[in-house]
């Protein structure tokens, strides 16, 4: 199996799907001649031409609307958001149109479109460029939301997203693009809606997704050294949530910590806790603990930026709390 960077895995998925289906095209800012702001679309313009790799003007609302319209008549657009922070400008087209077309037309229309791009904080970009907006999109019926942590999942989920008959939001980890991992060649599909046990353990479950997975791994290694066995469930898909996998891991370890990068109020993690307490309460030996980003805007200052985000020490502390160990 080849070792690829996260961005290369995405590039491979795009190229393979465009090769397979001529209805697939990519539109976004700097995706063509610049080769992608984060180099996800490197080399695609030369391969597929300017009608299929489309350099859009800086008009998020406009080109998102164009993508949705093209999907309404059967093309399969992939709309790249340079970052999800900019996609806030395109919310009307994603939420009021893409998510609702099927319902408002009584099932006459389908909207097979992928909106993808980087999300999350890091790199000292201050408030407007450092947001984990997963829960914003997961809120809306009519959308699917995926957020892969590894290069292999990135490839497999993007291929699924492009083939899906519904609008899919794919939030990539801005800090993960250069991360390397083994990626199966060719037809590698990760189904939407299936979580993945990334680490088996028996004392406590950590439920997370995207970049936070790596902090959880770091925490798990430290805890392992102290004799605590950690299971890590990577949700991968945030809408629909894999309830069965969430309940299965809690059934196994009887304790859970939910880790997310975003803000606590109305976060996806809050929904995960609700699923556990309403459907898995009898399996719990302790209240579920959440680790989230702090409920403040992101700062530019390096120390503040670090303090706002979850990290391994915060996760270790949370695990010890659900285990009723020291420091809790």
């Amino acid at each position, binding site marked *: 199996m080849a070792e690829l960077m996260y961005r290369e895995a995405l590039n491979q998925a795009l190229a393979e799907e465009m090769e397979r289906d001529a209805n697939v095209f990519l539109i976004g800012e700097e995706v063509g001649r610049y080769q992608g702001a984060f180099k996800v679309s490197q080399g695609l313009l030369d391969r597929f031409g300017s*009608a299929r790799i489309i350099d859009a003007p800086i008009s998020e609302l406009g080109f998102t609307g164009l993508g949705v319209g093209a999907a309404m008549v059967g093309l399969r657009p992939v709309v790249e958001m340079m970052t999800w922070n900019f996609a806030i400008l395109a919310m009307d087209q994603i939420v009021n149109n893409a998510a609702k077309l099927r319902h408002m037309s009584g099932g006459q229309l389908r909207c097979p479109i992928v909106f993808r791009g980087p999300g999350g904080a890091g790199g000292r970009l201050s408030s407007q460029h450092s947001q984990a907006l997963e829960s914003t999109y997961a809120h809306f019926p009519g959308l699917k939301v995926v957020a892969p942590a590894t290069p292999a999942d990135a490839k497999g989920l993007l291929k699924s997203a492009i083939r899906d008959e519904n609008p899919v939001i794919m939030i990539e980890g801005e800090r993960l693009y250069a991360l390397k991992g083994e990626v199966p060649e060719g037809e590698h599909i990760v189904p939407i809606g299936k979580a993945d046990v990334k680490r088996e353990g028996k004392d406590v479950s950590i439920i997370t997704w995207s970049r936070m997975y790596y902090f959880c791994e770091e925490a798990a290694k430290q805890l392992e050294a102290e004799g605590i066995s950690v299971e890590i469930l990577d949700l991968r898909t945030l809408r629909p949530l894999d309830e069965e996998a969430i309940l299965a891991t809690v059934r196994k370890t009887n304790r859970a910590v939910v880790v997310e990068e975003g803000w606590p109020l109305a976060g996806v993690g809050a929904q995960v806790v609700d699923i556990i307490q309403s459907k898995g309460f009898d399996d719990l030996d302790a209240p579920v603990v959440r680790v989230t980003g702090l409920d403040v805007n992101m700062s530019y200052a390096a120390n503040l930026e670090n303090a706002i985000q979850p990290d391994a020490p915060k996760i270790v502390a949370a695990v010890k709390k659900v285990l009723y160990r020291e420091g809790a």
Partner: protein
Amino acid sequence: MASKYSKDLLLTMYRKMYLMRRFEERAGQQYGLGKIAGFCHLYIGQEAVAAGVEEAIRPDDYMLSGYRDHAQPLARGSDPGMVMAELFGRTGGYSKGKGGSMHIFDIENHFYGGYGIVGAQIGLAAGMAFASRYRNEDRITVCYFGDAAANQGIFHETLNMAVKWKLPVLYICENNRYGMGTAIARVAAVPEIHKRGQAFNMRHEAVDGMDVLKMYEAVKDAAAYIRAGNGPVLMEANTYRFRGHSMADPATYRTKQEVEDERKNDPIPRLKDYAIAQKLAKEEEFDAIEAQVKEQVDAAVKFADESPEPSLDELWKDTIVEEGEEDVRPRERVLGAKVTNWPKYPSGQELKVTWDLEPREQAEKADKAAGLKR
């Protein structure tokens, strides 16, 4: 001098305008009876626009609109009973009662919806036009919007791309002079909406939207221009709604005199008078059309009234396409009629994309001149 229009054309346009008028009057009445709820934006007064457009384009051209969207699909050939049933929120409606007044969709007749967010359809239309070019089809997309939508960001963002990429789309601004209760001149720096095309090097024109023949001529010409690959056109149809913004609006922001003056321009008697003066049709022929349309609208109301409310399990349908779920053909579902012109799209394998948004030679030449390496 003999008229350059055929009797058939004039009578067809008359029938369509009369259908729109009667349908909307009955819709207003049914709203008063509590059969229709929500907002209900009537098209009364603007009929010449939709009737003129429809006869000047092809039935398979794509079309979409805003929230004032009951009448345009009727001009396309949508079933009045199914439109009325949608207004009633019943199973027999085009969207099984889930869309309502502001969201009429008749995909079989290539009517791709009414939209409740002002101006949002302007972006969608560009995407549909983009798809036509992508697939080397020569169909155009007609997008209706109101004067107020021209102040939305998406109008400006989309026109820019539509011109740059020569998208085959006809934007028709139905300027009825009021965005809800606000006269366009009060809020628009340039109230002549068509002039805004100038900012994008876009062909633009204003048409008397109370004259169906002028609409017909202008759209025929614009459609030919667009179909020939010249890019989009911005057309402003100057029209007037005789009623308020919606059924909830008593329209006290305009004078009685203004409305009375505009009613003298009513496009429906105007066409009738023209046809009779030109000796193309007799009074009795119009009487016959009017009688038929009245019956048609009565039948539509009856159909809507008898159509059941959707069952509660419909709540969980039509949000996400489940795997293997088949397309729904509403006419087949509601009326049991066989659908023959449901759109079929070429599969990706058959499709060859030959079009360049930015021709490579041109791009390379520009790069070379600037001393850049691609």
